């Protein structure tokens, strides 16, 4: 009893300080829907599951992956530049790896949906921690479901590139999602990309931006290596980083958020599938 009180008090004070002045809902920060609950909802069959995008040329197509648009009502985001690139580079579709909104409000969800739709090509999205910052009619997980559908799902494009999207919005993977991931990985495709919000690694002196649990990170790393995943692609950190662990490429795609950069400029990762080969490069966007 004393312990529970002590823990609760300490964490409450810590987060009250950390979140003062931000648009986050403090109760949601401490007691948001767990990853287990979100995963169950994502695969409940009640949400419309995304379907494979049809590309014009199955032997050659390009797609962009990025995270952290973090749109606010007054935000000037970098999608404007991205829209130009979509036309000039012939990008077929894109993927957003969480933090589509800054504070997870219904207004922000409405705005980002309209913005993403206006790019004019199909896209997939998965959830980030900022998208959970509200509850109920204010926004958060409920609004995510009604706007974008599930946060955990898998799709295969052109029978060549398989995307497995994980919900890591609260910084963990959870029991059911781990089991589901392993089941999904047992199906072989030429290229498998695991896309989620949190990266596993962040260099020699990491801050708090990658998955926090050592054992969760090591178990996930082992699964990715065991099933020869092509790339683990994440957002969350506002910068671009590449690493290779065993045969698995680890990418942090860069952020569309024009402010608060951790390193480098806003950017996205551009993937090219060309007759059985998959390659990628960083595309820089101008900082604001």
């Amino acid at each position: 009893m004393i312990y529970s009180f002590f823990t609760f008090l300490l964490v409450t004070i810590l987060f009250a300080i950390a979140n003062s002045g931000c648009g986050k809902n403090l109760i949601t920060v401490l007691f948001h829907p767990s990853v287990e609950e979100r995963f169950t909802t994502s695969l409940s069959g009640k949400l419309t599951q995304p379907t494979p995008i049809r590309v014009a040329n199955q032997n050659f197509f390009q797609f962009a992956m990025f995270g952290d648009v973090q749109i606010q009502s007054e935000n000037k985001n970098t999608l404007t530049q991205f829209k130009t690139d979509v036309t000039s580079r012939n990008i077929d579709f894109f993927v957003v790896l969480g933090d589509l909104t800054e504070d997870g409000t219904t207004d922000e969800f409405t705005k980002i949906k309209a913005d993403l739709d206006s790019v004019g090509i199909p896209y997939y999205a998965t959830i980030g921690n900022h998208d959970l910052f509200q509850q109920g009619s204010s926004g958060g997980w409920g609004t995510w479901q009604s706007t974008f559908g599930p946060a955990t799902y898998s799709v295969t494009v052109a029978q060549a590139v398989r995307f497995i999207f994980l919900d890591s919005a609260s910084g963990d993977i959870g029991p059911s999602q781990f089991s589901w991931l392993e089941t999904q990985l047992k199906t072989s495709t030429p290229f498998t990309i695991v896309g989620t919000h949190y990266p596993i690694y962040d260099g020699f002196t990491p801050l708090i931006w990658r998955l926090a649990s050592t054992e969760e990170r090591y178990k996930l790393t082992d699964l990715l290596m065991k099933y020869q995943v092509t790339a683990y692609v994440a957002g969350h950190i506002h910068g671009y980083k590449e690493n290779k662990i065993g045969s698995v490429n680890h990418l942090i795609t860069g952020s569309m958020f024009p402010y608060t950069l951790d390193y480098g400029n806003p950017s996205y990762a551009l993937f090219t599938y060309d007759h059985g080969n998959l390659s990628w490069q960083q595309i820089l966007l101008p900082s604001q």
Partner: protein
Amino acid sequence: MRKTFSILAYLFLLIALGICQAQAGHEFVSTHTYEGGVTDRVLLEYYGNMKLSSFFALQAGGRVNLIDNWGLNLLGISAVLSLPWIMSDLSLSLQHERWESWETTENRALFYWSFYPFSALETLVGIAYRAPQFAPSTLLQSLGWSTLDQEMGVVYRFRFRFFSIHNLSFYGMAWNYDHMRLFTYDNIQFSIQPELTLDPSLKLFGWIGTAVKGVSGGLVSWEQTMFSVGMRYDL
């Protein structure tokens, strides 16, 4: 590789136990740790402490995992320099941890300062270098100290006595490093520890804890629990 490692590790522990017989403290702990979707472990742990002089001590420890990732799970050795006039210890520790089922090992070096300003408060701060080895094919590779994924981080522990009656004390702890268990510094462990002093050289203790993880961006996940019982005997 597991067999070779196990033989070497048992030898290491036997030598540590033998050395510690001279003038030493012994600590035996049984711990149950649970992390949803990741691991569920029952650990048997031993930590020995040998005072070589008034200012210098060696500590060695190891643990066996009885269920997930079963087998010898951790070995560690520490050198401790006591500086009683500033109520401090300086420690250098080398540790090797294994997760057999995930074909992963981690070698780490830690340097930390322990400070005891009051009898009711202990603090520890320091740095940790961690070098995980994924899918090592030989024992030598599993003992490597350099990879592309090595990390440098901080370690900390704050332990305070908040309640005491007769020979029973209760401690609260916020930590990411204790008993050679190391978590990332944003995976904050909170524990409560009752301790019963049966005589000056014999203590029984318990331990119950949970942790926050995923604090980045301000969201907290409560998914780790830990429960321990143990005995500490000082010669």
